[in-house]
């Protein structure tokens, strides 16, 4: 309470000085120069956004469910919950929520007076329609589908209240319902055929989809009837100042940066380390560094087959490479080294730097102990005439050039202690194919999700069992009954402290088992022109929202 009052005082004085940019749902650490201190917000203008991601084939993030969809959908769809600036889950479209004693019944009450952009009112029926839409096989949802996997049934109790019946207690449900992939759409709009809904989903957000010129741009216009569902009365109401956003797709990184520098576009995403560094030198462009939640970017070592079925060999590989030197030389220190399984925005992540310091001498002695004592003609270690060789399929869609160069550095330094690392650059389909065939020893597979429950997806033995498509998430092939037990208990406990402690124990097992080599957070950098003010607010998955953003005249 006292804290709230202090916050309110702080905010009102901030408002007096004209600070309009309040990180609303933010978990971002903006290092930008373009915050709004230096200007009074002005309405109007169309912001041109240039995305480096592939153009989504569907603007409804329920369908499939990838990050490019989340980036654009965050402008026109909203979720039941969100994250506050301290990383805490707070209600958004929801007003309040309760869970039963046994953890199997979750009641959600909605705010009043919120309407979709098709004019229909937000009612509890929308919760039911949206969860059923996610669970319908015809929707072909993968991310949202997993997020609501434990919801068996949704009952509408009254206009504003819905009751979710769960198959097992799920303390990650609110985190799951904060993600854009489970955002709430108009039930009437969801009943249209999929192609129509994909072209222009209907939500409650600050903008709405006006048109979509394929391969050119998605045109968004301001939702004039936007009612910001402000959860905390001490916060400034988010306001949409922009008339609209032209959401362009510019796949080539150099072109994107040139277009930003020449003022053809206002904001770019997927900013590469070299451009971030040169933008910082230039001093006029703003920079938003918004690491994604969920897992950190890390190498996973396939422990289900030789040579990485031996913990000594896993540690030897990890000790043989110098990640920090590569981050400095290739990323110009735009990425911060991680020693954790989880993103730095995850409050329950633990770090252990000592496990991952480069130490080639130790690597050599570990390999000697593990019996890889022979050296073949090319200088690689061998055992029983078999070379110490590991296969490393790299997805060119998911690894930026700087990261691919980093992996080549790993290849060179691992060679010095006797590892042969075979890097294979693959397109996304072939890469998934290689993983499904178990044709890998090392792999880097990003995973974005809100909250520590991502640990269960990545390290529970259930996740070694492939889905019908051949996909499995536990690439390190960790199969440990004690770990499984911890991850299940952590997901079901209703005690926040116990949850943190269980997840900490689980992380310790994986870190100390040398199943992974953490690299850095999932990089998510945006650069913007000096005319763009008020950047900073993001959703729970760190996708920026353009409320509070305005174009200075």
């Amino acid at each position, binding site marked *: 309470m006292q804290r709230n009052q202090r916050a309110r005082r702080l905010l009102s004085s901030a408002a007096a000085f004209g600070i309009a940019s309040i990180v609303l749902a933010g978990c971002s650490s903006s290092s930008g120069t373009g915050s709004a201190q230096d200007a009074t917000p002005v309405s109007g203008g169309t912001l041109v956004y240039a995305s480096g991601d592939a*153009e989504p*084939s569907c603007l409804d993030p329920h369908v499939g469910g990838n990050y490019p969809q989340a980036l654009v959908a965050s402008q026109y769809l909203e979720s039941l919950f969100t994250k506050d600036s301290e990383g805490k889950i707070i209600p958004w479209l929801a007003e309040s929520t309760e869970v039963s004693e046994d953890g199997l019944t979750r009641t959600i009450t909605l705010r009043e007076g919120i309407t979709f952009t098709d004019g229909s009112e937000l009612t509890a029926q929308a919760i039911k329609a949206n969860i059923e839409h996610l669970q319908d096989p015809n929707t072909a949802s993968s991310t949202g589908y997993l997020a609501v996997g434990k919801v068996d049934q949704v009952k509408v109790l009254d206009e504003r209240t819905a009751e979710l019946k769960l198959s097992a207690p799920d303390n990650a449900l609110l985190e799951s319902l904060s993600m854009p992939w489970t955002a709430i759409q108009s039930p009437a709009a969801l009943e249209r055929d999929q192609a129509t809904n994909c072209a222009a989903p209907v939500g409650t957000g600050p903008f709405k989809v006006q048109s979509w010129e394929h391969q050119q741009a998605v045109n968004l216009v301001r939702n004039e009837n936007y009612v910001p569902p402000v959860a905390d009365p001490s916060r400034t109401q988010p306001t949409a100042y922009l008339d609209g956003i032209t959401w362009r797709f510019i796949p*080539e990184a150099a072109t994107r940066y040139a277009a930003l520098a*020449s003022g*053809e576009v206002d904001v770019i995403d997927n900013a590469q380390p070299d451009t971030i560094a040169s933008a910082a030198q230039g001093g006029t462009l703003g920079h938003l560094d918004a690491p994604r939640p969920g897992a950190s970017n890390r190498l996973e070592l396939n422990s289900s087959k030789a040579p990485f079925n031996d913990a000594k060999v896993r540690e030897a590989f990890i000790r043989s490479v110098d990640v920090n030197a590569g981050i400095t030389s290739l990323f110009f220190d735009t990425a911060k080294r991680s020693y954790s399984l989880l993103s730095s925005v995850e409050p329950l992540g633990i770090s252990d730097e000592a496990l991952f310091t480069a130490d080639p001498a130790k690597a050599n002695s570990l390999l000697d102990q593990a019996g890889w004592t022979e050296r073949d003609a090319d200088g690689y270690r061998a055992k029983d005439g078999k070379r110490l060789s590991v296969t490393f399929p790299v997805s060119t869609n998911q690894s930026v050039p700087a990261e691919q160069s980093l992996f080549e550095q790993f290849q060179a330094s691992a060679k010095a202690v006797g590892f042969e690392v075979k890097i294979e650059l693959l397109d996304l389909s072939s890469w998934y194919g290689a993983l499904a065939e178990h044709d890998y020893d090392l792999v880097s597979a990003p995973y974005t999700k809100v909250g520590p429950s991502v640990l269960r997806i990545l390290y529970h033995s259930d996740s070694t069992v492939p889905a019908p498509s051949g*996909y499995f998430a536990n690439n390190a092939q960790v199969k440990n009954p004690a770990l499984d037990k911890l991850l299940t208990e952590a997901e079901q406990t209703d005690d926040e402290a116990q949850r943190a402690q269980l997840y900490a124990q689980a992380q310790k097992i994986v870190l100390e088992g040398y199943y992974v080599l953490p690299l850095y957070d999932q990089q998510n950098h945006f650069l913007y022109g000096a005319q763009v003010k008020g950047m900073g607010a993001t959703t729970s998955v760190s996708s920026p929202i353009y409320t509070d953003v305005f174009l200075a005249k």
Partner: protein
Amino acid sequence: MGTLGWAARKLGGALVVLWLVATAIFIGIRLIPGDPAEAIMGGPGSQASAQALAAARAEFGLDQPAAVQYLMFLGKLARLDFGTSYALKRPVTDVMAEVLPKTIILALLALAAAWALALLFAALAMRANRFGAWLGGMVEIVAAAVPHFWLGAVLIMVFSSALGWLPAVDNGTAAGLVLPVLTLALPLAGFLTQLMRDSLATAMSSQFALAARARGESRLAVFWRHGLRHASLPALNLTGWAFSSLLSGAVVVEVIFARPGLGRSLLSAVLARDIPMVTGLALFSALVYILVMALTDAVQRAIDPAGAAS
């Protein structure tokens, strides 16, 4: 041989080529890894259930034996039914109608620009001194050899970032077209000039050129009326090929300049294992190629009947 016979032969040949292309696509797509049903259900890494995958297979006939699928595939193509894109869930013909004109315009403008530049180079080369000729030759060779992606990046750096004269991204305006067209046209222009240069030199020193000069015609008039006509024949022969090379160059240029078109669609369709889209776009490209070849053939028949008949 009559024109009718010539046309019938061309049409028959075109159908055979299209059938071969279709067959190659059918086989090629089955050789690359990745489950088409997965592509339908949201792409690689999707977590589609077994039932959903089975339903998708049945809907698109993927559960049939390969021979049956092949016949179904050819039957649909014969009815000009290209199906629905797996990734975009839109009819392939709709997407093609959207992107094809954009790429054709780009390629035609580039072809025109390449010819204009080649003629300019050739005219300059004729007037140049020894050093000038050597320099011109070097420029042609470099122009003909540079890859599109490099040239595009350099043009953006110079004309957009440094000078600020032209937009880096194709924004639909005429100014936005300049850099993409130049990127495609410059290498082709270098190539065409190289082709013309030797025959131009031969033609300009030939008996009839000397005779024309002796009649008092200016050097430039001789160049335009006699030299160029001879010199451009070999280059004209290759225009059909040049146009198809522009279509493939369009893949790169459309990506660099973020311009919508056939090339960009083809690239994303291949990456998404979007079989109907790849099939439709590849067949359409083949068709355009056949048409352009037939057209250049016809033009050649008109200019030089003896040469075409031999």
